[in-house]
């Protein structure tokens, strides 16, 4: 048993090393060394979120609550970037990296994990930086309970990671995944809870809205941010189940493509 543990420890060490190497490589190939380089990792989502915040402020978007629009847009749109970017980067991730698979310790799961970490990191840094900035200039009050925000954020990230790895692995088998992901992710945006509070929906629709996993996560984030100012609705157990099921499917699919890989 101890030797088995040692072997697992060694494998974990190798995997950690490989993921770190892939992460550094990914940053270089994506952002290069020109202008601000890897700062784009979180500047890009920050620009997105700021743009949406300004648009929603100007159009006085109806969001069905008395919340300040800045806080509403920040929590909503940051969440969208979090769950949407991971699948976006995992789909089709294997093909351009086939040459690296000449090294037997580089496996598809490492490529997915490196990209997932990078996307989650970028979205998180963007969310935190913007929050601090808005709080500093007085557009936003500090969150009521940071831990609850972190919990909701973690659930959305987990969902995005599971979905990303699952779709990434499936996209190796069929290019339909890539074709369909763009329209689906676009259409899912208005349904994802970014632009509404569940409480503002007609009671009959609330039940159905909570079937969309991301909605639960966004509601938790908003509870942490606004506390008693809002009435939130979510089903943590349901979202947890979705995440676990997605993760199991993702690992199974990744194991399947792992067997069929041909390095070039």
């Amino acid at each position, binding site marked *: 048993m101890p030797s088995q543990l040692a072997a697992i420890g060694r494998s974990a060490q190798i995997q950690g*090393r490989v993921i770190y190497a892939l992460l*550094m*490589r990914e940053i270089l190939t994506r952002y290069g060394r020109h202008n601000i380089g890897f700062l784009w990792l979180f500047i890009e989502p920050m620009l997105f979120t700021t743009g949406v915040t300004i648009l929603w402020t100007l159009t006085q978007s109806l969001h069905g609550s008395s919340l300040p629009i800045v806080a509403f847009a920040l929590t909503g749109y940051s969440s969208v970037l979090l769950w949407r970017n991971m699948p976006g980067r995992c789909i089709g991730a294997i093909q351009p990296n086939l*040459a690296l698979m*000449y090294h037997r310790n*580089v496996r598809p799961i490492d490529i997915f994990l490196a990209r997932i970490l990078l996307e989650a990191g970028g979205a998180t840094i963007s969310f935190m930086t913007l929050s601090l900035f808005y709080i500093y200039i007085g557009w936003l009050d500090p969150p009521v309970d940071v831990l609850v925000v972190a919990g909701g954020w973690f659930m959305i990230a987990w969902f995005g990671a599971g979905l990303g790895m699952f779709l990434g692995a499936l996209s190796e088998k069929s290019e339909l995944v890539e074709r369909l992901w763009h329209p689906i992710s676009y259409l899912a945006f208005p349904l994802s809870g970014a632009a509404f509070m569940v409480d503002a929906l007609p009671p009959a629709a609330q039940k159905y809205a909570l079937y969309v996993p991301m909605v639960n996560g966004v509601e938790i984030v908003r509870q942490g941010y606004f506390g008693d100012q809002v009435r939130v609705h979510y089903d943590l157990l349901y979202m947890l189940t979705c995440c676990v099921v997605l993760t199991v499917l993702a690992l199974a699919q990744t194991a399947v493509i792992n067997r069929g890989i*041909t390095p070039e």
Partner: protein
Amino acid sequence: MITAEHVHKIYPTRAGDRVVLRDISFALARGEKLGVLGRNGAGKSTLARLLSGAERPTSGKVTQDMSVSWPLAFGGAFQNALTGLDNVRFISRIYRQDYQRNIDFVADFTELGLYLKEPVRSYSQGMRARLAFAVSMIIEFDCYLIDEVSAVGDARFHERCEVELFEKRGDRAMLIISHDPEYVRRHCGRFAVLHDGDMLFYPDFDQAYEAHLRNLHETG
């Protein structure tokens, strides 16, 4: 030792499954040098990838009881969008190597100078071969899988490869794939010919070469 037991490899193609390797079993002991001959598409590079562990056999088993290199070919193993130096860093990280020392060796061996800071995709074939070879020499393995490194590059490069591989690392096991019969004859002690999915072994080069020539000129 590397052991292949009943290794079978099938690639799916549009025209149905194609058997590349059929029930191949053999062992490569420490220090042993095996030369592999075969026509284009006979499965030589596939064999190297399977032995390296980068690819899995469709059925059968490959066991490695010594450290085995990745297939040293002049393509592959590199990210073309990255610079030569970044590739050295990447590989140093994967294999936990001191990359500063590696960079010195690579710069000295490849004589690429400022090109090391340019993306690999801008390199000529010969430059790429030099980089690929140097990078594979920074990590010490018990067994090297060599896939046509002698096919590109100039005479000076070939001489330096000889020194690194067969003088400094003459005690290691090697699997050498080459279309240059002379190269295989000179460096190997045991020979194999791949043809139609089968791998036949010959202790004697002349017999192996004769079989290979027969396969080459076989029609159909």
